[in-house]
């Protein structure tokens, strides 16, 4: 076996420039794959991190996954009813204090309750439909990312006496209001009240900056004529990955719909899967091309070394020996290419991580200045595995051909 290895290495070494080209082909393939994988996974992680950061990890609302059974159905189990009109439920999470307390006992993380209702902001003859969210400033600040996005004031400013409101800066601009302005908020119940703007926030997400307003929970309850009601509990977990489990448990316990962030963003996460498929396809294609380079050089070697093959066979080397010889040559090139590729990949990542640029990331609510790169030994392993497989195949095909060569044909041809 050592003999075969030595022969293989001698063959490769005998073709300096071509060997370098073949190795570089693989190396570039491996290097770019690594850099690309790092970038793709880095942006993905970054994206999810921001997603997780700006959203509640689990949101419990006063809805149910399936319609409630009607009293008539419960009373008369044998009969079937059709066309029943659902009894009007009192909207909101029932007995919120108890629900909140029971959640607090086991949920690993922080939570906040709120009453979310629709309203119209009216100022200077302009009407803008908004979400009016009644909150408790202390708990909200620990759950919501908006707390960190204030341009002026804060959630705590709501407490400063009277009817106060916090709005997004885009909304304020749109209606021409600013801090200190008193605006009218009209609720679906017909209630209308004046609120003084005490804070402006800028999340970078236009829908939120234009469409969300925060008031004290009490004010929201009065405005919507639902004393003591809440319809939204949001959880911020210590471990965002635990969200689905926590959501399931909360839903089982309370009976209300609890949505983990993964479910809320299913379509986005699916898009990421598609992105990964695209990436691996491209990476695979790059390495396939590198494989052709190896195929080329091994074929050339087998053609050039036909005499060697003949002589080795006449000396008593078997077909298997010959196959192994050229297979090893292919793998050796693949391996050398992988190693150089690791270096190239590493350097590329290093270079990319130094790139400085400005993108206003309005859609994700934050501004990027550095490319997010994710380093993983798996990228290196997968790229090399791909390279080795393709170089193995690229070596094997000509190797099989070479092994089948009849030494007589070559010896005859030479004489």
């Amino acid at each position, binding site marked *: 076996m050592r003999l075969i290895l030595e022969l293989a290495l001698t063959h490769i070494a005998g073709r300096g420039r071509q060997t370098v080209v073949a190795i570089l082909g693989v190396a570039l393939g491996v290097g770019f794959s690594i850099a690309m994988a790092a970038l793709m996974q880095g942006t993905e992680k970054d994206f999810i991190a921001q997603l997780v950061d700006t959203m509640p990890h689990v949101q419990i609302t006063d809805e149910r996954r399936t319609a409630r059974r009607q009293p008539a159905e419960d009373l008369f189990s044998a009969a079937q009813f059709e066309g029943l009109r659902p009894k009007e439920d009192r909207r909101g999470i029932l007995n919120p204090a108890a629900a909140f307390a029971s959640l607090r006992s086991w949920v690993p993380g922080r939570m906040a309750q709120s009453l979310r209702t629709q309203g119209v902001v009216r100022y200077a003859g302009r009407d803008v439909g908004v979400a009016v969210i009644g909150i408790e400033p202390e708990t909200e600040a620990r759950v919501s990312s908006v707390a960190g996005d204030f341009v002026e004031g804060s959630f705590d400013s709501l407490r400063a006496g009277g009817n106060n409101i916090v709005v997004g800066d885009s909304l304020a601009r749109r209606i021409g209001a600013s801090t200190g302005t008193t605006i009218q908020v009209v609720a679906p119940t017909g209630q209308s009240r004046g609120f003084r703007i005490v804070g402006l926030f800028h999340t970078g997400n236009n829908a939120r900056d234009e469409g969300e307003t925060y008031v004290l929970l009490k004010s929201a309850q009065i405005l919507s004529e639902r004393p003591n009601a809440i319809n939204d509990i949001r959880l911020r977990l210590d471990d965002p990955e635990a969200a689905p489990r926590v959501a399931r448990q909360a839903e089982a316990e309370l009976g209300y719909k609890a949505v983990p962030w993964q479910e809320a963003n299913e379509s986005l996460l699916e898009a990421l899967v598609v992105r990964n498929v695209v990436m691996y396809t491209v990476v695979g294609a790059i390495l396939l091309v590198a494989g052709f380079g190896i195929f080329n050089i091994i074929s050339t070697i087998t053609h050039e070394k036909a*005499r*060697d093959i*003949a002589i080795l066979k006449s*000396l*008593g*080397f078997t077909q298997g020996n010959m196959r192994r010889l050229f297979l090893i040559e292919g793998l050796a090139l693949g391996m050398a290419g992988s190693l150089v590729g690791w270096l190239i990949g590493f350097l590329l990542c290093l270079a990319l991580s130094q790139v400085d640029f400005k993108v206003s990331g309005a859609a994700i609510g934050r501004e990027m200045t550095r490319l997010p790169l994710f380093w993983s030994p798996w990228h290196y392993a997968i790229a090399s595995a791909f390279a080795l497989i393709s170089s193995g195949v690229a070596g094997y095909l000509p190797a099989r051909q070479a092994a089948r060569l*009849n*030494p*007589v044909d070559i010896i005859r041809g030479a*004489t």
Partner: protein
Amino acid sequence: MNLLIEADHLTRILPATVPITLVRDVSLTVGEHEFIAITGPSGSGKSSLLYLLGLLDRPTSGTLRIAGQDTSSLNDDALARLRLEMLGFVFQFHFLLPEFTVLENVKLPMRKAGRLSSTEMRGRAASLLEELGLAGHLDKRPDQLSGGQRQRVAVARALANDPSVVLADEPTGSLDSKSSEQVFQILQDLVKKRGKTVIAVTHDMDIAGRVDRRIHLVDGAVVSDERVTQPVA
């Protein structure tokens, strides 16, 4: 006397649109200590017969026994093993591996056989080369040697695993007369001093006249098989 090679009605037909018969119904036996020349005009199938006897090619029909073993039932790997241990080849062109030194070239078959230790292989290769007058050239590469020297390296390589039979295909075909003589002497010594059997294909009538036995082929068939002088004892 033990029979090393027993050929029985060997025929080799090259499959083509018009099949070509390379070797036609050849039967012969070869014993120990024989120095045989296969002669004949160009295209008479001399080399083809040699390749058949050397297990490089398989006959279309007929049977071939090497040291009493029927080779027709053996697979390619078994034939390769038999070549490695029983047979040594010398071709018209030296066919040395250009990237390896003279010593490494001679060691190659021994390493493949894997019976000797590294130092034993080195010692054996060196002594073979010294006996063939190449003492000072062990670490040279083949392209640094003359044609005659290369051919002697090829002989040393053929002897590496101490085979019973050395098959030579026009061993002097590409050499000048002085080198030819040297190589011929070496082949003769293999028979006389080492007790090998040498079968050489040649159209050099000078050489053909000095061997023990001469097999003459025409159109792939044996037309004469005669002992020229007293067989070497």
